[in-house]
């Protein structure tokens, strides 16, 4: 059945399509056409494209080397010459645009001769080891030699040449063999145009010209971020994936979606038999347009890592050894234990947690399991700890819990405001699109306590960096809005037409109060009033002002307030409802949006409909044939508190690792230890599994059929590339568990689950696997069967009708620096690693980030006697850990920064149980701490190592048998 998915080679039409306003309502508008004649055939082609592309569309492939559809035409190789009637000479077809009535010949004896001459020169300085070359079968130079009929090389091969240049194997995932370079500069242009990193240049002139990374550095030491764009662009074996060198050319491909971040890049998973050889970004991918980052492109080794558990495990207590068992026994054990707990402690004593890493279908069945089979609403999702405030804030103000734009919209923004997000590290492919727009001259405002890369990087410089103190977000957003109103910059006509005027009146009075002025908030936020005012003017007066934000907004005790503040600012300046504007959460995990859409929160069903809504409940009750509890259940932190209180006893955890990812680790440990049955479904025996009684092995994204929904609400297909290593589909595990507990759940394929979702969810009307195969991807809402999706939301009116201005008082966090804990710790992530690192730490990418480092300002370091590279003890009211210091001015005095990719770092031993007032999203971004030099790991770390070693021992026997 999977043969259905196989796709052929990607076609390269040579030069890019003309981008019609893709962000406009219905997607690409039909561009006007012109009529041309190519080799005797008349064709109508879009205006503004190249002769090369027109010929390709008409079926004539003109030889080319320096051109590729992913990059702007360059015109350097002179292989693509054509003749055009009425014009002199032989123009390059890649740089010549079509004109009405043009008559083109792509093949004549003279053209053939010219092309052969060009090829002859290239080949005379190229090694002739085609048969043993890794690119054999996928080399454009080889193809072109064939296409132009090259038979001899008159120059001989012993003149001056570049054949002895050494290879650079330093990059982790690809190799660079300059001897094979034809200096077409496609790599250089890919690094500039697609990635925006400018790591490569052509050094020297004429015969001496060569490709170099940074200042003639090895790749690993250069600015290269290993996105792989240059590798894809290279027409020869010069830049090539090491996996292809190792395995040979892939023979088959499946289109699927990256399982790392919320950009949701579309990929061709290219295989050789059952072996994944490489992941190549899909040119037709609607979120990424043929681009990717190091994680999706290269970091897939975890899927086959030796730590993968592929057999179910059970044990009675966490001090017992794990026993490897068959699926039936594992499911029976899990079901019996959950039922016994319910019999003893009540129906509401168990619950489940869905994962943003899993597919929509897998998430849906877990929440259905909890509501229908367990009979309560104790279901939550890991989005609780990242974007729950987005759901609350955007639903309240705009009426829908999702970002307003598609990614392409950024290409029409005039001013971009980035708040509490670090796109170049966390959403790299979107960051590249953003940088493209910045290179074209869009304004940039960065609101962040740290000087993130965007503040100043090659060809990008923020107009304003509002470097606020951690915890002062709401003060700053209020000050920006105050300045807008104070200086009369609001869009009155827009507000009158689109917003709830009574709410606006109340909000306007509130925001105009002196306490919200830039001058009054300056002392709290540390941002000079004049800067705030200037930034407000830039954003409000831009034409198109677009806001992008991340976890630096949500993971605060006022996360929901801040999201509403952002929506207020956008409404007040009329920056919602058209291309180039909007309020855009940059979602962390690949399927955060989807997990939220699928009814994972304890208070709502799919499509964000509250349980108390009778009509919705009836709909589900009829479909599921079960009575639903109309009251909300526990959120994750409530589950933990209730576990410690002794009334919550059993938890089914789908692919989430609380014991590392959730704040206040010691509290989490206590809660997990207090439960009688913890069931973990995951790829690895992760931190949480150390507390588990049943382990159900899950599938990597390469082993599943399903869908992910990215940060722009785009539902994209995930397709099985290889069979599940565990022999069981993840959705099926959940269904079997429900069935074993007496509630029958059966589907024959995940497409049936999607059909059920579409039946029950108004915003998913008509979404099906067939439609996804046809369209490639679909952005919800789909309000009727015929809908092809909605790239832009709130176009004529807000989803809630009138936009609602919510008052946003600034309530400072309780987590304040004081004499005991005088510094503020904030947390984040790096490009090469992903969250808890369970995946990325099990790939070569670990070489880029071996440990979590503590960034500290030189002043703070000096007074404490902390030097670069030394061990630093960190203590908060929650706990104590030890990290290695990096002394840097990237952080402000008084602020510390670290990542949390490695469990032994214990970054979350330090973070507290403080959380967002509305959603309990933890306040990861602010913890008051003290720092001091130490010489050994903390007590917690020592305990962690002992516990890890003990747990490892308890699984050794079972794993060696299995």
């Amino acid at each position, binding site marked *: 059945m999977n043969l259905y998915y196989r796709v052929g080679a990607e076609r390269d039409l040579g030069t890019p399509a003309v981008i019609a306003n893709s962000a406009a309502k219905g997607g690409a508008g039909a561009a006007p056409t012109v009529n041309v004649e190519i080799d005797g055939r008349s064709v109508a082609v879009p205006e503004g494209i190249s002769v090369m592309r027109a010929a390709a569309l008409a079926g004539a492939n003109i030889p080319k080397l320096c051109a590729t559809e992913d990059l702007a035409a360059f015109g350097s190789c002179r292989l693509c010459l054509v003749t055009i009637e009425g014009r002199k000479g032989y123009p390059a077809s890649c740089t010549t645009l079509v004109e009405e009535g043009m008559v083109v010949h792509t093949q004549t004896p003279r053209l053939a001769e010219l092309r052969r001459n060009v090829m002859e020169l290239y080949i005379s300085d190229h090694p002739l080891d085609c048969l043993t070359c890794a690119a054999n079968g996928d080399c454009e130079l080889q193809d072109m030699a064939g296409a132009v009929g090259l038979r001899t090389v008159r120059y001989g091969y012993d003149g001056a040449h570049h054949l002895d240049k050494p290879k650079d194997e330093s990059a982790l995932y690809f190799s660079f063999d300059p001897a094979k370079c034809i200096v077409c500069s496609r790599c250089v242009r890919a690094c500039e145009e697609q990635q925006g990193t400018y790591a490569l240049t052509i050094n020297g002139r004429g015969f001496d010209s060569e490709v170099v990374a940074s200042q003639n550095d090895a790749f690993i030491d250069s600015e290269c971020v290993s996105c792989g764009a240059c590798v894809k662009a290279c027409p020869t074996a010069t830049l090539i994936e090491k996996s292809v060198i190792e395995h040979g050319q892939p023979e088959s491909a499946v289109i699927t979606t990256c399982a790392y971040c919320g950009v949701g890049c579309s990929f061709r998973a290219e295989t050789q038999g059952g072996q994944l050889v490489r992941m190549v970004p899909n040119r037709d991918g609607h979120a990424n347009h043929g681009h990717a980052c190091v994680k999706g492109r290269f970091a897939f080794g975890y899927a086959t890592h030796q730590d993968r558990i592929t057999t179910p495990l059970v044990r009675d207590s966490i001090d017992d050894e794990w026993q490897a068992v068959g699926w039936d026994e594992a499911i029976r054990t899990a079901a019996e234990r959950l039922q016994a707990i319910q019999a003893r402690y009540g129906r*509401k004593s168990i619950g489940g947690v869905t994962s943003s890493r899993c597919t929509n279908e897998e998430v849906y069945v877990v929440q259905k399991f909890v509501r229908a089979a367990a009979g309560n*609403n*104790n279901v939550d999702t890991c989005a609780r700890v990242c974007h729950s405030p987005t759901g609350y804030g955007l639903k309240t103000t705009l009426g829908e819990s999702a970002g307003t734009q598609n990614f392409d919209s950024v290409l029409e923004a005039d001013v971009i405001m980035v708040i509490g997000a670090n796109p170049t590290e966390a959403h790299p492919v979107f960051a590249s699109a953003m940088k493209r727009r910045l290179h074209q001259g869009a304004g940039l405002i960065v609101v962040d306590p740290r000087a993130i890369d965007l503040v100043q990087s090659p060809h990008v410089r923020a107009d304003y960096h509002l470097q606020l103190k951690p915890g002062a977000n709401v003060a700053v957003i209020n000050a920006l809005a105050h300045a807008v109103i104070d200086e009369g910059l609001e869009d009155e006509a827009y507000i009158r037409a689109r917003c709830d005027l009574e709410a606006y009146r109340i909000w306007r009075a*509130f925001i105009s109060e002196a306490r919200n002025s830039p001058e009054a908030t300056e002392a709290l936020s540390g941002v000079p009033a004049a800067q705030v005012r200037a930034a407000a003017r830039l954003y409000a007066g831009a034409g198109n002002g677009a806001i992008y934000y991340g976890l630096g907004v949500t993971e605060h*005790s*006022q996360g*929901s*307030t801040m999201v509403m503040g952002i929506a207020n600012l956008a409404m007040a300046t009329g920056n919602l409802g058209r291309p180039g504007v909007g309020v855009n959460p940059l979602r962390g995990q690949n399927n955060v949006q989807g997990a939220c859409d699928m009814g994972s929160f*304890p*208070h709502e069903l799919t499509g964000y409909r*509250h349980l*108390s809504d009778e009509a919705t409940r009836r709909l589900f009750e009829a479909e599921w044939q079960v009575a639903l509890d109309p*009251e*909300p*259940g*526990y959120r994750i932190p*409530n589950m933990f*508190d*209730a576990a*410690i*209180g*002794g*009334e919550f006893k059993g938890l089914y955890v789908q692919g989430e690792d609380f014991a590392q990812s959730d704040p206040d680790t010691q509290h989490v440990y206590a809660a997990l230890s207090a439960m009688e049955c913890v069931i973990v479904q995951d790829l690895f025996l992760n931190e949480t599994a150390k507390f588990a009684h049943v382990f159900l092995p899950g599938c990597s994204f390469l082993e599943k059929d399903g869908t992910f929904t990215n940060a722009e609400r785009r539902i994209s297909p995930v397709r099985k590339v290889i069979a599940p290593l565990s022999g069981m589909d993840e959705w099926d595990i959940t269904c079997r568990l429900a069935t074993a507990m007496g509630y029958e759940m059966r589907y024959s394929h995940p497409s049936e689950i999607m059909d059920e979702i579409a039946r029950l969810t108004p915003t998913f009307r008509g979404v099906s696997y067939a439609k996804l195969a046809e369209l490639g991807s679909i952005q919800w809402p789909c309000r009727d069967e015929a809908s092809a999706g909605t790239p832009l939301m709130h176009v004529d009116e807000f989803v809630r009708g009138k936009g609602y201005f919510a*008052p*946003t*008082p600034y*309530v400072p966090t309780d987590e304040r620096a004081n004499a005991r804990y005088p510094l503020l710790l904030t947390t984040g992530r790096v490009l090469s690693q992903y969250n808890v690192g369970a995946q990325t730490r099990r790939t070569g990418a670990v070489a880029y980030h071996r440990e979590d480092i503590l960034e500290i300002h030189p002043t703070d370091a000096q007074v404490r006697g902390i030097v670069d590279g030394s061990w630093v003890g960190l203590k908060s009211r929650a706990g104590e850990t030890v990290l290695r210091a990096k002394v840097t001015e990237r952080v402000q005095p008084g602020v510390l920064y670290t990542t949390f990719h490695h469990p032994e770092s214990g970054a979350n031993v330090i973070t507290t*149980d403080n*959380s967002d*007032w*509305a*959603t*309990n999203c933890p306040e990861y971004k602010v913890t008051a701490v003290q720092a001091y030099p130490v010489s050994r790991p903390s007590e917690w770390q020592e305990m962690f190592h002992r516990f890890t070693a003990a747990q490892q021992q308890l699984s050794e026997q079972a794993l060696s048998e299995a």
Partner: protein
Amino acid sequence: MTVDAAKLVRMAEQITANMAYTDDVELVAARVADHLNRFWDPRMRQAMAEVANGDADQLSPALKAAVRQLHGVAGEGAL
């Protein structure tokens, strides 16, 4: 009672503070009650009600008023 009452009070007061953009205690109380009714498990609402029945003076005026408007607590046998 099995939940940590002090923590619930802290969370409820936090909600109240964030809703308190006006001095109108009744308005704030209504919004706080609505929030707790929509997002809190009834067992947590029940625990809040018990706190209010005991030492109500530890609660801010708006929260105290809000607790009186909670659904499904004390007497109605929500548990």
